[in-house]
C-alpha cells in the first residue's frame, strides 16, 4: 500500500479486538515464497514492541500478528516494507469470511467415509470369499452383514449429508441435480441391504454405499478446493488494489479506514497515484484524473475545487481532498452493479455439464429400474428378487464416475492455468469458455497496458530529466523514471500539487511539470510533461498508452482458432482505430457508453453467438457480466474482476488463447469421461437386470470406473507438460 509522507497513518480500523485485551491484525504479504522469507518476516515483526506473536501462512501468504499491548499496525507494515515484502492490511470482516468452514466439513465427511469404507472391507472380504465357494456358513455371513451395517450406516448417513442436503434443496426448487440420484441410490442401498440381512438373503451392499460416498466426496472436495482457491486468490488481488481510504479527522490527521466504512460527508485525501475511493466532490487541490477504468477514455480530465469525481478514477496530479457524496456501495459503481446483477442471473441459468448429464441419466436409469421391477415381477420373479434386481441396477449405475468426471478434469485444467497466472473462478466458467466463438476486446487496459509510457524521447533527454522524475510520485514522472532505470535523485525537491516538481540537479535548478509550470506555451494536452533547467530551452516529453507487446500475436492466435474478434471501446475514434490497425482487428467500434456495450453483447447473443468479453473498466463490468464468458486482467477494477470468470495476472495477452485452449481440452476430456461412464453403464445395467451382479462385482466395477475417469483427467497435465 502506498504510504504518504505525512504523519504516520492510523490503521487501527484494521485491528480485530480479541478477548483478554489483545488484538489481531491480518496482512497480505507479497513475495514471501520460501522458508527463509518466513523466518525473516516472523523474526522481524515478532521483535517489534507490543507484538506477542507473528505467524505467516506460507500457503496463503497471510501474516497474522497478535498484539498484547498497544498496537501499532503502521509500524508492522513499515518493518515489512523494510524487509522487502510489501504488505496490505486485510479488512477484519473479509478475514473472517476467508475462513473455510465448508471445506473443513467436506474433509471431515471424507475422513468418515474413508474410515467406513476401509473398515467395512474387514467384513466384506470374507463374504466375497464366500461367493467363490469358500466355506462361509449363513450364520457367519449374517454376522458379517450386521457388523457391516453397524459401521456403514452411521458413516454413510454422516458422509452423505452434503449430498442429501443439496438434493433436498434442488428438489424443493422442482429440479433434479446430480445429487438426487446419488441420494436415492445411497438410501435405497442401505434400506435394501438391511431388509436382505434381516431376511437372511445372500446379497447386501453396505460396503458399496460407503465406498460410493468416499469416491464421490473426492470429486466434491476437488470442486470445492477449486472454487475456494479462486475465491481467496480473487480476494487477495482486490485487497492489493484499493482497500483503504484516507479519512481526515477534525485536526486534519489522516487515518486509514476500509473503503466500505466511508460515510457520506467524510473528508478523504487522495494522494497522487491512488484511486478515488468513493464518489465525491473536490474541496481542496487541483489535479487531473484518469477515468480510463470508468469510461474507457484514455485522455485524463482536469479537476479543481467544486468539481465531482467518481470512484475508481486514478489521481494523476497533486493531492486532492474530497468530500464523500456517496458510500462505497452507492457510488457510480452501483448503477453498473445493477446491470451486472441482471447479467449474472442469465449466467446462473447456464446448465453445467454434469447437470446436463444428470438430466439424461436420471430418467433413463430410473425408468429402467422401474421396468426391471415390473417386468421381473410379472414374469414370475418373487417380489423380493424383483426389488433386489431393481436396487442392484440403481447401485451399480450410481453415477460415481459421473460425479468425478467433471471436477477431476476441471481441477487439473485450472491448476494448469493457475501456474500460468490465469485464475479460474469456477468450473462452470471453464465450460462456458470452451463454447465461445466470438471475442470482444476492450481497448484501454486490455489491448493496451493501461498506463502511460514515455514515447519518442532520446536517451540523453531521458537521462537529463530522470533525477527530477525519480523524486516525484506522479504517474507520468514515474514513467520517465522507469524508462531511465535507477540512478541519482535531484536534491532540494519541492512538489507543487497539480503543477509539477522543482529541484536541483548537479547544482542547477530545474523544473518538471505542466507547460504553464515550466513556462512553455500551454497546449492543454494532459499526456505530456515539460522539463527545463532554469533559463534554458524547454523540452517536451510525450506519453502514450502502449499496446501490449504480444497483442497482435494473441489476436492472430485467436483468429487461427476460428474465432472472430472485435473491439468495443469507450475511447475516441482516433486511438481506437489506430490500436485496431496495429493488432490487426478489422471490426471495431468507438465512443461507446457502458449501456451501448451491453446492447452490443445482447445483439450478438440474439444472433446466436457465444461471446467472450475481455475488459477491465467499470464501463465493461456490465458487458462482462452479460457475456457468455468473461476475462479481466489483474489490473482491472474490482467490479470488473468480480464480473469476470477468469482473471489473468500477467502482462501477456497470450493468456486469452491459452485459456480457451485449456478450456476446450478440458471439455473434450470431460466428454470422454462421460462416454466412458456411459459405456460402463451399458454393460453394467443389463447385468444387474438379469440378476448377475453380486456385491463383489459391484465393488470392483465402481472403483475401476472411478479410477479410469480420474486417470483420464490427469492426462490434461501429462499432455501439456508440467509448467
Amino acid at each position, binding site marked *: 500500500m502506498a504510504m504518504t509522507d505525512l504523519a504516520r497513518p492510523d490503521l487501527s480500523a484494521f485491528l480485530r479486538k480479541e478477548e483478554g485485551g489483545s488484538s489481531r491484525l491480518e496482512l497480505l504479504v507479497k513475495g514471501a515464497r520460501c522458508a527463509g522469507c*518466513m*523466518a525473516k518476516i516472523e523474526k522481524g515483526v515478532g521483535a517489534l514492541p507490543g507484538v506477542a506473536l507473528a505467524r505467516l*501462512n506460507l500457503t*496463503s501468504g497471510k501474516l497474522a500478528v497478535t498484539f498484547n499491548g498497544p498496537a501499532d499496525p503502521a509500524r508492522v507494515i513499515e518493518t515489512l516494507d523494510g524487509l522487502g515484502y510489501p504488505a496490505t492490511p486485510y479488512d477484519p470482516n473479509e478475514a473472517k469470511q476467508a475462513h473455510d468452514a465448508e471445506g473443513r466439513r467436506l474433509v*471431515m465427511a471424507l475422513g468418515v467415509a474413508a*474410515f467406513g469404507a476401509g473398515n467395512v472391507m*474387514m467384513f466384506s472380504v470374507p463374504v466375497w470369499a464366500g461367493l467363490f465357494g469358500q466355506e462361509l456358513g449363513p450364520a457367519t455371513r449374517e454376522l458379517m452383514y450386521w457388523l457391516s451395517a453397524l*459401521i456403514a450406516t452411521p458413516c454413510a448417513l454422516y458422509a452423505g449429508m452434503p449430498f442429501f442436503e443439496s438434493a433436498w434443496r434442488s428438489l424443493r426448487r422442482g429440479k433434479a441435480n446430480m445429487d438426487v440420484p446419488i441420494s436415492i441410490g445411497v438410501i435405497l442401498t442401505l434400506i435394501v441391504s438391511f431388509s436382505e440381512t434381516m431376511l437372511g438373503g445372500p446379497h447386501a451392499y453396505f460396503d458399496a454405499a460407503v465406498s460410493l460416498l468416499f469416491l464421490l466426496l473426492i470429486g466434491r472436495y476437488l470442486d470445492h478446493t477449486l472454487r475456494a482457491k479462486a475465491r481467496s486468490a480473487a480476494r487477495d488481488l482486490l485487497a492489493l488494489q484499493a482497500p483503504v481510504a484516507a479519512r481526515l479527522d477534525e485536526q486534519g490527521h489522516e487515518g486509514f479506514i476500509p473503503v466500505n466504512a466511508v460515510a457520506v460527508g467524510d473528508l478523504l485525501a487522495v494522494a497522487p497515484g491512488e484511486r478515488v475511493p468513493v464518489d465525491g466532490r473536490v474541496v481542496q487541490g487541483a489535479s487531473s484524473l484518469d477515468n480510463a477504468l470508468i469510461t474507457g477514455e484514455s485522455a485524463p480530465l482536469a479537476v479543481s475545487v467544486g468539481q465531482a469525481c467518481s470512484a475508481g478514477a486514478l489521481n494523476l496530479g497533486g493531492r486532492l481532498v474530497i468530500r464523500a457524496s456517496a458510500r462505497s456501495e452507492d457510488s457510480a459503481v452501483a448503477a453498473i452493479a445493477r446491470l451486472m446483477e441482471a447479467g449474472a442471473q442469465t449466467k446462473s441459468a447456464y446448465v453445467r455439464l454434469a447437470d446436463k448429464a444428470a438430466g439424461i441419466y436420471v430418467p433413463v436409469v430410473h425408468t429402467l429400474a422401474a421396468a426391471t421391477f415390473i417386468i421381473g415381477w410379472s414374469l414370475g420373479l418373487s417380489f423380493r428378487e424383483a426389488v433386489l434386481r431393481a436396487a442392484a441396477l440403481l447401485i451399480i449405475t450410481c453415477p460415481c464416475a459421473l460425479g468425478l468426471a467433471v471436477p477431476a478434469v476441471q481441477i487439473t485444467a485450472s491448476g494448469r492455468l493457475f501456474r500460468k497466472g490465469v485464475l479460474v473462478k469456477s468450473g462452470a466458467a471453464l465450460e462456458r469458455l470452451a463454447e465461445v466463438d466470438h471475442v470482444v476486446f476492450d481497448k484501454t487496459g486490455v489491448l493496451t497496458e493501461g498506463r502511460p509510457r514515455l514515447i519518442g524521447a532520446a536517451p540523453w533527454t531521458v537521462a537529463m530529466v530522470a533525477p527530477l522524475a525519480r523524486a516525484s510520485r506522479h504517474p507520468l514522472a514515474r514513467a520517465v523514471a522507469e524508462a531511465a532505470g535507477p540512478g541519482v535523485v535531484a536534491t532540494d525537491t519541492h512538489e507543487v500539487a497539480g503543477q509539477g516538481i522543482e529541484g536541483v540537479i548537479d547544482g542547477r535548478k530545474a523544473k518538471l511539470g505542466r507547460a504553464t509550470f515550466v513556462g512553455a506555451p500551454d497546449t492543454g494536452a494532459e499526456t505530456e510533461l515539460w522539463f527545463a533547467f532554469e533559463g534554458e530551452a524547454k523540452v517536451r516529453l510525450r506519453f502514450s498508452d502502449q499496446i501490449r507487446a504480444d497483442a497482435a500475436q494473441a489476436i492472430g492466435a485467436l483468429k487461427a482458432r476460428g474465432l472472430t474478434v472485435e473491439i468495443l471501446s469507450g475511447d475516441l475514434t482516433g486511438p481506437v482505430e489506430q490500436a485496431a490497425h496495429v493488432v490487426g482487428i478489422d471490426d471495431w467500434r468507438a465512443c461507446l457508453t457502458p449501456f451501448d456495450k451491453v446492447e452490443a453483447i445482447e445483439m450478438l447473443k440474439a444472433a446466436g453467438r457465444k461471446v467472450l468479453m475481455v475488459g477491465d473498466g467499470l464501463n465493461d463490468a456490465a458487458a462482462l457480466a452479460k457475456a457468455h464468458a468473461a476475462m479481466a486482467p489483474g489490473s482491472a477494477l474490482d467490479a470488473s474482476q468480480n464480473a469476470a470468470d477468469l482473471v489473468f495476472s500477467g502482462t501477456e495477452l497470450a493468456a486469452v488463447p491459452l485459456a480457451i485452449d485449456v478450456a476446450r481440452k478440458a471439455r473434450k476430456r470431460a466428454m470422454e469421461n462421460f462416454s466412458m461412464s456411459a459405456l460402463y453403464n451399458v454393460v453394467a445395467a443389463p447385468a444387474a437386470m438379469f440378476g448377475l451382479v453380486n456385491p463383489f462385482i459391484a465393488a470392483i466395477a465402481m472403483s475401476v470406473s472411478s479410477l479410469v475417469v480420474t486417470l483420464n483427467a490427469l492426462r490434461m497435465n501429462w499432455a501439456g507438460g508440467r509448467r
Partner: protein
Amino acid sequence: MNVIFFLLPFSLLLALLGLWGFRWTLKHGQYEDPQGDAARILYDHLDEGPEG
C-alpha cells in the same frame, strides 16, 4: 474362531482412534498451511507447533 469376537471390536476401536486423531488434526488447523509447516521444521526457533 472365537478370537474373532475379541479381534473385531479391538480393530474397530483402533480405527476409531485413528478417526478421532484425524478429527483432532483437522480441528487444530494442521491442514491450513502445508507449505509453511514443511519449511518450519527446518528452523529451531520456528518450531512452536501449528497454530490453534
